[in-house]
């Protein structure tokens, strides 16, 4: 049984339907990526899965449980963390307080999780008392991922972690994603940087205008001519 199964999901805002009936699944321990151009419905898909917006129709099953009608805070409790597009750092809270917010659903000892975040992102430990809003873009992305890990998620939804970062930082972030997977988490990654995403993904889906047009292993899609033309910048 897959860890996450999405069937016929439709979601949108007001009169606009951004996701028009997509189905996908993520197995335990996988890195799965969702690639596509701007406005293809990638972020909407993640938001509908994590409950930030309510799906119009369709089913979302996480670990054998229907979650498509649950509020977001109940979904976090089940072990699904969402790192939103634009990172969503709380600017006036310190780095440390941001990390604590990530563990909001948990009452137990946190220092193990804090240690883990510090190990993955030593930069954050140096800036614990600094307000989140004063971090650089790359540090904010590290904080957003670290904060999501504080909830001890079984599945991590990452929305455009490479956005606005320098190539070196993108490299670091992607290495961290692989490290997180090695430690046992499953990752569903949304990216415009298709090249990098396909490189680390076990499987991938291509989303166009709210519909899935292609699916396969990361390597398969990276070789696919239409993908290369559309997303990898080849003529």
């Amino acid at each position, binding site marked *: 049984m897959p860890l996450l199964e999405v069937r016929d999901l439709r979601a949108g805002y007001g009169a606009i339907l951004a996701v028009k009936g997509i189905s996908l699944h993520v197995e335990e321990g996988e890195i799965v990526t969702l690639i596509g151009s701007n406005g293809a419905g990638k972020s909407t898909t993640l938001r509908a899965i994590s409950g930030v917006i309510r799906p119009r129709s369709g089913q979302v099953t996480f670990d054998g449980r229907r979650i498509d009608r649950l509020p977001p805070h109940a979904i976090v409790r089940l072990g699904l963390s969402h790192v939103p597009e634009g990172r*969503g750092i709380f*600017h*006036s809270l310190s780095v440390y307080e941001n990390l604590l*917010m990530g563990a*909001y*659903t948990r009452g137990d000892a946190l220092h193990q999780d804090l240690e883990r975040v510090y190990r993955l992102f030593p930069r954050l430990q140096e800036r614990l008392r600094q307000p989140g809003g004063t971090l650089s873009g790359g540090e904010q992305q590290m904080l957003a991922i670290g904060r999501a890990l504080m909830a001890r998620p079984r599945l991590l939804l990452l929305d455009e972690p490479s956005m606005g970062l320098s190539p070196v930082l993108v490299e670091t972030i992607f290495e961290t994603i692989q490290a997180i997977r090695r430690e046992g988490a499953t990752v569903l990654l949304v990216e415009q940087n298709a090249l990098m995403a396909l490189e680390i993904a076990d499987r991938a889906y291509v989303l166009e205008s709210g519909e899935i047009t292609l699916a396969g292993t990361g390597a398969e899609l990276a070789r696919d001519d239409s993908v290369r033309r559309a997303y990898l910048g080849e003529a």
Partner: protein
Amino acid sequence: MPDRSAPPPPWTRTLARFRWPLFVAFTCLLPFLLTDVWVQMLVFVALFIVLGLGLNVVVGFAGLLDLGYVAFFAAGAYTMGLLTSPGSPIDAGLDFWLILPIGILIASIVGLLLGLPVLPLRGDYLAIVTLGFGEIIRLFLINRDDLTRGSQGLSAIPRPDLFGYRIDSFTEWFYFVVAAAVVVGFCTSRLRDSRIGRAWEAIREDEDVAAAMGVNTTKYKLLAFASGAAIGGLGGVIYAAFIGFISPAAFSLQVSIDVLAIVIIGGMGSTPGVILGSLILIGVPRILQFRETSDFLANLGWLRDALNGLISALDAATPGSLGRLPPAETWGAQLADDTRFIIFGALLVIIMVVRPSGLWPSSRRRLEFAHDDTPPPAPVTAP
């Protein structure tokens, strides 16, 4: 970022640690230093500090813009009035100390009644609905005159006893309301630093992200409305007992605006800000009405002469178009009367232009404003 790693000298630390006890002790000395009109003015200031602290929970902590805060104040005041005024159809002659929790409870229920329908609303839309809610409560008080005696109001509301001693003089009321403000201030600052406070902070910054962190936003927004309303209700019960007479006219939109202005002028989310804000918004207009103020202005003979000189000069340019200032004996009172609202309005405008984040912003808010102005954190150099 200013360098905060250097430890401050020891005496500042001691002072910082005891700043609240010292401030309260100083406040308690005030009735010995001031005349009765000043103490009466300070009772209102303290009452509006209570209200400001309550609205601060809703607006400052949780970021929910509430323009109908007067509704909760009215709920508390009418609970007191209806249960104790001889003119009320349900006068039960209950004791103040029994009504206090009832009034707080009823106000928080009213808070939940407002909170439930506005849960999905944000920002401007929330402000408009809460504005309407405040008016609905006022119109209800006017129109249900079989219960509330409408515009006639409820009179002869008894004053409370404390340990068999009646709270009567302005000085006694001053201590009583200040005590209430201290209790409320303590509670709200503890709330702010708690887990609940952090949830509010997260909701204020980004409701979606807060939800994605596992914060039950419905629960915490309702909790903010209910806590703010409870404090408003407490203020209302105390107000009714102090004034002794309530009518719907006392619960107009102006009260909501005053309390919101206290929170904003002082600095959203900040307890010292609320105190400063109330001193300015409630204190200054009253001070400008005092005899002392007119006397003070009347003694400024040089100012009168200077103004008269200016008028003569202008008059020479356009003859006959300008009058003269009134004689020295009356001009102080007239100046205070004529310019009271101009002085007050100008003061508010100046404060908001010079200090957009409020007079005494909370440390968090200060960072936020600094961040909005300058996206990359620029180093602050000492002048």
